[in-house]
């Protein structure tokens, strides 16, 4: 499991990095989304992988931490999910506005000098 997830994180990150290095802002937007997935999974993985042990107490008495997956990275990732949506929205709107003003969807706001 660990190796597969690690490879998956690597794949997402590589695709994301490739895209954020592209010149068109739409590519960068998609790249940020993919990089966001990779980072969220990475942070989540820091709590180690457990199957079938969601951090929801079966009963109020069953509060032995070893019974459950680490809740802390999950809480961190949960807010990160929402924030990354906000980030995507903001980036998209900035890029739309920039394209309207600059007339170009290049990340620098103008076509490169050849």
């Amino acid at each position: 499991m660990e190796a597969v997830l690690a490879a998956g994180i690597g794949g997402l990150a590589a695709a994301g990095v490739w895209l954020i290095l592209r010149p068109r802002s739409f590519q960068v937007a998609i790249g940020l989304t993919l990089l966001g997935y990779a980072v969220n999974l990475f942070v989540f993985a820091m709590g180690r992988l457990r199957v079938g042990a969601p951090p929801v107490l079966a009963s109020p008495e069953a509060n032995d931490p070893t019974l459950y997956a680490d809740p802390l990275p999950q809480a961190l990732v949960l807010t990160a999910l929402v924030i990354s949506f906000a980030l995507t929205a903001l980036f998209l709107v900035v890029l739309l506005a920039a394209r309207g003003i600059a007339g170009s969807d290049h990340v620098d706001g103008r076509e490169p000098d050849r």
Partner: protein
Amino acid sequence: MTDELLVAAAVLPFAGALGAALLPRRARDAAAGLAGLSALVGLGCVLALIPAVASGRSAAVSFSWLPSLGLAVTLRIDGLAWLFSLLVLGIGALVALYARYYMAPGDSASRFFSLLLAFMGAMQGVVLAGDLIQLVVFWELTSLLSFLLVGYWSGKPQAREGARMALTVTAAGGLCLLAGMILIGRIVGSTDLATVLASGDRIRESPLYLPALVLVLAGALTKSAQVPFHFWLPRAMAAPTPVSAYLHSATLVKAGIFLMIRLYPVLAETDAWYILVGTAGVATMLFGAWCAVFQHDLKGLLAYSTISHLGLITLLLGLDSTLSVVAAIFHTVNHATFKASLFMAAGIIDHETGTRDLRRLSGLRRAMPVTATLAMVAAAAMAGVPLLNGFLSKEMFLAEAVAGTHDRALNAGLPLVAAVASALSVLYSLRFIRQTFFGPPALDLPRAPHEPPRWMRFPVEALVVACVAVGLAPGLIIGTALEIAVVAVFGERAPAYSLSLWHGFNLPLALSLAALVVGVGLYRLLGPRIDTNPRGGPWLLDRLDAARLFDRAMVGLERGARWLEDRLGAARLQDQLRILLLVALVLALTALLHGAGIAPATLRLPEAGLDPAFALLWLVGGASAVAAAAAAKYQRLAAIIFAGGAGLVSCITFAWLSAPDLAATQILIEVVTTVLLLLGLRWLPKRDRSIPIPASEKPRARRRRAADLALAVAFGACLAGLSYAVMARPAGEGIARFFVENVYSGGGGRNVVNVLLVDFRAFDTLGEITVLGIVGLTVLALLRRFRPAADSLDRPAPQRRLAAWERAQPDRNPGDSMADAMRVPATVMTWLFPVLVVLALHLFLRGHDLPGGGFAAGIALSIAFVLQYMAHGARWVDERLAIRPVTWIGCGLLVAAGVGAGSWLFGRPFLTTAFAYAEIPGLGKIPLASALLFDLGVVVLVVGATVLMLVALARQSLRRARAEAAGLPQREEA
């Protein structure tokens, strides 16, 4: 009682500033009244503190600030602080009254007076600081507020320039001061003022003494406009005159003096102090006086004269005798009174005649006899004419100059220097008075001069009366106050001194009289030639313009920065990102290789065996990611779908690996993200595959892509290796144990993740939803001014084709096909609305105990709204549902913050939660936690922000239709 008075004296000006800021812009009377009242009440408080500071006592009150760093907010008052506090508040009250009449009805009175009061508060903060670091904080605050006050008329370029220069010089000095204070704190082991004042020997013997001294003096000398840092003060004369009267005579520039007196017992009486302070003082006193002689601008003359007098005080402090410090304190008070009144008089002249040019003014004593008399008395005090306060302190100075000759060789020239400076000050005072008030009445003034309003003159009168009263009966008027301050500085070492008017015929008196005679003589000799001085600058020194040097240095700095930016900067985003990623990669690899490393021995074999389905899942995930990367250039819709695929895979991974909350939130986020990107695509036209790339560019482009690919693969591989290395190790003991063990007893819930978010770490969540709300508002603001690119104004190609086809069919009306196609989905989406609302409610209510929670519920609810927009269009929804996303954002934030603040009512810290279980018939046991209310705030805000972003973007499609319908060009609204 002492504590309350002390706190009131420190806080009142700030409270007044807040109050004045809330007043209407034009409320001059109210704002000035508030300012005067705050100052007067503060003054009352300080006066009532006499018993606490008399005969060397001091009082302090302390509040914990950063206990972990040993920092506290301490207000401490002793005799010295008390005297300066009187100056700050007393002259502050007079300046407030004066400014009421000086400021034009069009100026923003609320801004002016709130800044003035805030400045007064900052000065009080400096004076009453009981901790060195705290003193620096308020010190920098005075610099900042002086920037705002000098630049009050921000429309004038000179005001902006002057404000910027004053800030650059004094704030840079403040940074040096901070470093110096930290060094002193290092030496003493504490930054508490009382402790520091008791450790003078330890500081002077420390090897760090010299650096600390130089740094502290850098702060004090810049603030007090000493050569070579004096140049900001004349430039700051672009300030409104009440500001000059307050900041540049009585307070701001005296802060440096105050600091030197404050730290005199611990830093002074060494050779280094004597050389640094004494030299600066002599140079400043002579230079300032010489320059003042040649000014044609009234305020310029007063500014250079202030520099000269500050130099005199600094010199006194540098002389290293206790008596000279007494003279310094005395002259500080005297200078504040006569110089503030002179600035105010200059302001009145400017106000009533429209000019401050000494060459144009003449004969004003006929038009404004009272003001003329007042100004003459104040100027005489400045010149050191007997029977006025300036005379007394100047006599003390001359006596010190004469007495000091025996101690040190360098002091031999002091009497001469003192006499020259005195003669020059007679010269410029005389020039000021003679040319403004005497001679034939000027005929070409911009305004016909007359006396100012009664109460505008009152502050000048009050100050001049003080000059005369101190001059006539010094012991009676100021003796006690001076005594209190001197004892506070020296304690038992306080010298004996006599404040009487007459010390008999002696050398100082002879010097004083000689200075008067020489000054008058010089004026008769040189007066006319100074007026016609072609270059305007002072003779001999007109090439030595420090302000111009400063400007040139700033320009050079800017050029240097630009040169560096050209060489090292990466203006292009792609290059910046490449550098960032490369550096991150190199750093991570270095740490990995030199640090703990990924030694295979420490790896454990993963417990869970590999599930083929999981491998297959990630095969799909990886393929989606790569496909998204490949398609993003030309097939944008496909890229969105592939990215969504990768998102789904990570969602399933969360569900698989025991994170149901994450899975639920992720899938809902996926929906809104996809909708968002699809909406954005409308304004991002397809990239044309046919744009030819020049053949010459192809190899370069290929190289670049290869390098980027290598970087991406290396980055991915590193992250993969790192994740594996961590995951393959057993987890250390984290803080998870605390959360799991206390989640039920402390948070009243069973879903640890949710309780973490709304209870244990609720403050983080509050911050997070605030960010979300801000992003929503930013999106709205950006779209309000949105101008689509010219090529996406037209309707998209498929719509155009459809419309053309519809026009060609005889039996179809425009829009029919779309309505037909949407009929079934629209019906489904409409009926999904209640289902989704119930789902959201369900997620919200169960969140505390089972997977769900505010974020998921909020997004589910916004999906319900957004679906309606998709099914029927914005207009249809707007007619039926009044959704006010901005209100939702506000309410959500209010609810969340309100729940947090509510715990204060019960005497608990912010965001303390309470919970109970209520037995409701029919529904069973329902958890009732205040955290649930907090979560409600989260839901409301998330709905508001998400709907706001999506709907604001969706509404852009209406632009064109609206513009067509109105037959008008595009309007700028969202």
